[in-house]
């Protein structure tokens, strides 16, 4: 029998069924400046404990762009950021648009108005958003009430740059994403992208560390960073770690590509509590 008490409903919002795509959010017209909020749904039908966001660059082929997007709730003109500065990327080198899937373990009450906005490093790329609200969130994982971003660089619509350095397959120096986290972290996700798509065959591996400069301790080792040619959130999987507020967060990486201009990646961390 189906156990309806489990409440595993999936609510689709922002879906443009007539065109098989998500809701369009146009860029602000100013580089590295957030667009206006665009409503995805006026009122959600039920409580949700997680969001699967399917985001894709619009149907035009524009120039490569670094992207940061927000999801928000609240009435028009009074939106509150629910998901801040999720790192996304559009690369025109291979042409075309592409979807990127993000999972956010955060609660959305029934009746919420949900909207989206973004900023890009240029003004040619637009985004579309199709969200699935998961009544039960991710299996086995609690739902959180707040997400904070660390390491975002809004001035360039990107994350903090991590350079693996000129020695192949050897971890780099640590790059600080936050001198002191603003709230406790119970789970985190590293969003990373490779900055140059000219080397789709290359590979990256990153460590996440905590602790003072020169005394970093690895809390998440050897996360693989894919090299992809389109929207590329590298690791939307939230990993449960317990980190107190006020902790210094940093990242280091290694790569088998040591060519300057290709080997660098940029990243930010979303912390949930």
């Amino acid at each position, binding site marked *: *029998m189906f*156990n309806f008490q*489990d409440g*595993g409903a*999936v609510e*689709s919002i922002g*879906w443009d*069924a*007539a*065109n*098989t*795509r998500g809701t369009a959010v146009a860029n602000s017209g100013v580089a590295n400046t957030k667009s206006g909020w665009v409503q995805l749904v006026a009122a959600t039908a039920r409580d949700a404990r997680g969001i*699967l966001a*399917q985001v894709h660059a619009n*149907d035009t082929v524009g120039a490569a762009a670094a992207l940061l997007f927000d999801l928000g709730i609240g009435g028009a003109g009074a939106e509150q950021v629910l998901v801040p500065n999720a790192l996304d990327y559009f690369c025109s080198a*291979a*042409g*075309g648009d*592409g*979807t990127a*899937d993000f999972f956010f373990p955060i609660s959305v009450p029934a009746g919420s108005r949900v909207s989206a906005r973004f900023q890009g490093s240029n003004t040619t790329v637009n985004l579309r958003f199709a969200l*699935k609200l*998961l*009544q*039960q969130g*991710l*299996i*086995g*994982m*609690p739902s959180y009430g707040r997400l904070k971003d660390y390491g975002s660089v809004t001035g360039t619509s990107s994350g903090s740059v991590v350079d693996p350095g000129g020695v192949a*397959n050897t971890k780099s120096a640590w790059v600080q994403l936050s001198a002191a986290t603003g709230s*406790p972290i119970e789970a985190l996700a590293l969003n990373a992208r490779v900055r140059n798509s000219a080397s*789709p*065959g290359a*590979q*990256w*591996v990153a460590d996440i560390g*905590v602790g003072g400069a020169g005394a970093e*301790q*690895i*809390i*998440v*080792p*050897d*996360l*693989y960073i*894919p090299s992809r*040619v389109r929207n590329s959130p*590298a*690791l*939307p*999987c939230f*990993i*449960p*770690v*317990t*980190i107190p507020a006020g902790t210094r967060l940093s990242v280091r990486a*290694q*790569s*088998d590509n040591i060519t300057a201009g290709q080997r660098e990646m940029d990243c930010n961390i979303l912390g949930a509590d």
Partner: protein
Amino acid sequence: MADWTVAGEPCRVQAAGSPGTTSGGTTVTSAALNTKGSWAQLVAASGQEAGGVLVVARSTLNAIDFLLDIGVGAAAAEQAIIKDLFVGNASGFRHSLLFFAPINIPNGSRISARCQSVGGATQVIGVTVHLLGSRFNQGKPLSLVDALGTVPASTSLSVVTANAVASTKGTYTQLIASTTREYRGLAVTTNVGSAAARFGVDIAVGAAAAEQVIIPDFHVINSVGSARQNPTQPVFIPCRIPAGTRLSARCASSTGAATIGVAVHGVC
């Protein structure tokens, strides 16, 4: 690595199948065409109990599709606990799969991987499994990921065809007539075809002609026919599926009549 025990038990992360000297994980090699190869050990004994695992698989630049198993158990006695993960790479880029499975693996487990491909023998992928601390899975422990709708005989997925009318859902294609176990959640895996199109995929339960959608409008795009794009981070969507359930899929496409490969993985 650090143990932060400020609240609750520590939750560490262990990488099995380390990046080693290539930044690419442990090499796993296929056997004959569409035939699973030998198991390759990722770790001899895991260092902690895991409440979830993150599987990372990356292909080479060869344009070849793979199915990947993750197993536990001693050499020559491995048991697949995650079955037939689709690592599609028809585009010829180095494609990556990041697959999170909310299953428990006991401390001290030997973990290994094997694969098959459409390219026959000696095709390789790199595999790493990240073991997440046992605090991750706060519900009933889960232990197995089944593949539903994969087609091992051709290292592919069930073919679903959109309605000839653009942006209109087509007829259902059965993924499995009757599930053999009760599942706690499903993850959608797709393989876009050669046509440049946008897709919206529904996953449904129920008898033929009486299907009920449980996962609506899963969005997939293939904008460039020669460079396919597949979702590379399937997530498990909680939905309790009893044993004996028929699962099927249908889709709409922006162009009409386009095809897409679809399968789901069930966790139990």
